[in-house]
């Protein structure tokens, strides 16, 4: 899951990014400025945007409105020091999905981020099932045939994303876009490496993670 943090307090943004990255699921981009943040939000397929409202150059509320006007579906968590009910209502009405006032608890922020991502993919439960797999998005444990498996971070991130988009063909480009932030250097063949590693663990005959030639991958057992 790729997250964008638009927050002008550089240290706050950095701290949030650190915690989210340590949560395995998230790849994080940071923008400390409204204009730059707006550009990033509009040109990249983020799974979640954490948006401060008081920003230099372009106001957070304007970014939110422009995102929704451009039909950008990314869930937005509004983050601000303003706690008046009218401000919360305005933020939600402008297209925000959730609201946190500063100062907040990191654990709450992380839980809300997970919930927003889950919801946006139509998965109400924190445990996502895919065929014989149970993926716990909180503990990042994967249960396969009554065995808990702790996957390496990027393998888990890849599996979680495929599970969220179960039944849909996900291209390699999409995977790269959603699993890595800007900072990461990536090459498309790493995806193939991770896929084959995952198959070795619980899908030796390629029935769970199938390759659609020329298009990408699809998670979900093929009809027999």
């Amino acid at each position, binding site marked *: 899951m790729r997250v964008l943090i638009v927050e*002008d*307090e550089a*240290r*706050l943004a950095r*701290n*949030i990014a*650190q*915690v989210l990255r*340590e949560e395995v699921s998230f790849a994080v981009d940071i923008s400390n400025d*409204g204009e730059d943040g707006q550009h990033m939000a509009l040109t990249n397929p983020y799974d979640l945007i954490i948006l401060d409202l*008081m*920003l*230099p*150059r372009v*106001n957070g509320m304007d970014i939110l409105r422009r995102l929704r006007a451009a039909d950008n579906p990314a869930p937005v968590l509004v983050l601000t*020091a*303003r*706690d*008046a009910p009218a401000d919360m209502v305005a933020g939600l009405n402008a297209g925000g999905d959730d609201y946190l*006032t*500063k*100062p*907040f*608890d*990191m*654990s709450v922020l992380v839980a809300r981020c997970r919930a927003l991502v889950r919801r946006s993919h139509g998965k109400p439960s924190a445990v996502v099932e895919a065929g014989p797999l149970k993926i716990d998005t909180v503990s990042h444990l994967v249960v396969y045939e009554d065995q808990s498996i702790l996957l390496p971070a990027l393998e888990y991130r890849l599996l979680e994303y495929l599970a969220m988009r179960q039944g849909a063909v996900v291209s390699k480009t999409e995977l790269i876009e959603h699993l890595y932030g800007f900072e990461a250097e990536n090459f498309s063949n790493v995806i193939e490496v991770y896929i084959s590693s995952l198959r070795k663990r619980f899908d030796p005959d390629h029935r769970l993670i199938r390759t659609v030639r020329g298009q990408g991958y699809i998670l979900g057992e093929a009809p027999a």
Partner: protein
Amino acid sequence: MKPLSLRWRLSLLVILVLIAGFAVIALVAYWEMDESMQRDARQTLAALMTAALGSPDESDSDAGIQAELESIVRATTRRESTRYRFWWDDQPARTGPVDSPETHEIFRQAMAAVEPPQVAQHIYCRVGRGKQAFGVVWARKTVRGRIFNVQVAYSNRYAYNEMREFRNIILILGGAVALATGIATSLVILAGLRPIGRTARIVANISARNMDRSHLDSLPVPGELKLFVQSLSDMLERLHLSMQAQRRFTADASHELRTPLAVAKSTLQAVRNRPRDAAEYEHAIDEVLLDLRRMERLVAQLLTLARLDNTPHIESPKTVRLDVVAAKAAAAETANLGAPERLALGTLAAVSVPGEEGLLTMMVGNLVRNALVHGPSGGTVTVSVEGDDGEVRLGVHDEGGAIPAGTIEKLFERFYRMDASRSCDTGGTGLGLALAREIARLHGGDVSLTSSPAGGTTFTVRLPRETPDTRT
């Protein structure tokens, strides 16, 4: 007792004035008519008397005289308004005076008391009251050696009735008109006062939450109330603006306090998220200490502002050498920011002002800090103090470029930042200049700002100079 309302007082006044007016008119008219009627009566009586005195010449017997008188009376007046009586002075006692057919007791009672006139003379008198009032003429004349008395009474009773009717009409009509005018006045005043009532109801519903001028703008008001409603509306607007400023200040203050708190908290929570090595912990602690310093400074400034807001004037001002304070504060502030080499001291005239040294130090410190942080990096900040007879001027100059004229006044607003983000990159609280201005004003002066690309930016504090009588 509750005082009568303006409406009733005015209505009552109008009624009373009208009644008085009608009464005066009625009285004057009554007098005038009475007078003319009396004149008329006397003329009639004079004519009657002349004719009556001639009648014994025409006839010798009493019956003949009576017949003669009857004809005279019938010819000249209405019979029922005229009475007469005649007699001879030497007439035998058994024959009384001769009276007109409808005789009247006036001749027996009222006229009995009247002194008889001289022979060949006549007297006129009025007897009776109201409807029974008569004008009477008594004349005596010698006829063939005998003295003939004749009394003729004439009553203008019918005219009197007319007058009474006229008087009653005036009274009833006048009363009705006065009453109707009174009620109409009352209604007009009631309608005229209705906008006040409406305004009062609107004002009663205004509270701090919904205060602005729109409430009264749409209210239709008559001309004489326009100024009143207008000034009320203006007052609402002023209160609205100051409430807004207050609310903005509270929101800004909470933002300014929450942000460093959020940063500090996130730093600690992030570092606690996983086991870290000692260097990481140390780094986090240092960062949180920085946040705490920022909050500390902000809280101190907020508290100072709150204290200044509640201080109309300095309690016991002391003599403060402004040049000494300025040099010390500027040196301390530049050292604080680790740039003592950026400070230059200009003219420092030895002048004193009455005031509080701590506050003046804070004022100079804030201005110097502002110049150091917002002026060009590495640029020199020059502090100077000079004075003349009236005032003392403290200047803080930096080599910064022109500040747009529109933002100059805003710079002194609490929490104003040239950029909307309020980020703390510069380490400022956004209160420094506001505080400097408050302190200057508390000392009876003010801070102004001039800025040009060539001349740089100069903050000038003008304070009244200490005079012997301010030193108490």
